[in-house]
């Protein structure tokens, strides 16, 4: 069954992973801009990264028959220096016009600081100004509940956000309800130890339904699994869920949300 992994950091994965993903049925990925594990030393470093996301990575993906789209932003871990961060935000419009850039992401909060919030608000405003989709990172572990609520408040404060064009990612059992109740899309990230598991993601679907929900691996340079989406699909089959539900969660839901960009092709 064909599937989409709508949040995965392929710049940090080898072609072995592309091959395995293609064999497992992956037909498209979208790759948000994220923290590389170190703080980039200049805005030019971000510029080069955005070139890698929009020009190099799509070619690597295409060799395995996988469509690759990107998101651009300054991530919350590198937003604590607001002067530096605003220089990076100024680079974004050039890349938002690229044919394979879907919107601004993954923006959000990390430790829930004032500086992070100011840069989040600036990027929300930029997305509104350019009428782009938004993909949001919610904080890790003990910071997630507080950060999710702060992010929802920031989106509401902007006053011009259409919740249907915003995906709040990395939801778990204690945040998914508020995200869905406020009309946003919610992403369940299947990432070892610090986020959701395939089994828990299926539990969430059983409790909340499948509307405005997607799953992703967020595979990156850390301990992660680029095949966690097909593993979740297998868990759904083992529990007896029908193929149309699996297809909705792993293909038609991501396609519906991402197609709002006018650029998502699969």
């Amino acid at each position, binding site marked *: 069954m064909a599937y989409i992994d709508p949040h995965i950091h392929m710049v940090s994965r080898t072609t072995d992973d592309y091959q395995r993903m293609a064999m497992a049925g992956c037909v498209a990925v979208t790759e948000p801009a994220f923290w590389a594990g170190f703080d980039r030393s200049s805005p030019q470093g971000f510029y080069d990264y955005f070139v890698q996301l929009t020009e190099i990575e799509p070619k690597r993906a295409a060799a395995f028959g996988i469509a690759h789209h990107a998101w651009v932003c300054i991530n919350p871990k590198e937003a604590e220096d607001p002067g530096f961060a605003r220089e990076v935000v100024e680079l974004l419009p050039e890349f938002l016009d690229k044919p394979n850039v879907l919107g601004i992401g993954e923006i959000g909060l990390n*430790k829930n*600081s004032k500086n992070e919030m100011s840069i989040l608000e600036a990027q929300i405003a930029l997305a509104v100004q350019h009428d782009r989709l938004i993909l949001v990172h919610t904080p890790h572990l*003990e*910071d997630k509940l*507080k950060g999710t609520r*702060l992010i929802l408040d920031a989106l509401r404060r902007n006053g011009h956000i259409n919740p249907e064009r915003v995906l709040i990612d990395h939801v778990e059992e204690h945040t998914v309800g508020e995200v869905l109740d406020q009309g946003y899309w919610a992403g369940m990230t299947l990432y070892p130890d610090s986020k959701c598991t395939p089994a*828990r993601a299926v539990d969430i679907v*059983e409790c909340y339904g499948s509307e405005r929900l997607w799953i992703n691996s967020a595979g990156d340079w850390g301990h992660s699994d680029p095949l966690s989406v097909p593993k979740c699909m297998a868990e759904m089959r083992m529990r007896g*869920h029908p193929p149309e539900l699996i297809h909705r969660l792993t293909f038609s839901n991501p396609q519906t949300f991402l197609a709002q960009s006018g650029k998502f092709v699969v």
Partner: protein
Amino acid sequence: MADSLNPSTCPQPRSELLDRTFLEHRAKLLDLAAFLDRCERCETGNEGHDDLRLAAMQGAMKLLIDDQPQRAKRVLEWLSDDSTDLLDHAPGKGATGAPLSPK
């Protein structure tokens, strides 16, 4: 209303779910038990921070056996920072897995 695209239950019978996954979760329970034993055998040091994480874990475990629903949600809430104000500055980049103030 529940339908095939919006299930409200796990469609697998409980006996089959247990047949398929009981041993996996038994192993996870043993991992947790062994971890707690291991912590007691460790040389002590940095007790303040360590104890807050262990205390948070022990508090969370009580929620597993209180016979109330939504255990996963309640455990995550228990392990969450309850404050609401933005921090003046980010204290590093990582998270620890448990709130740094006792509950």
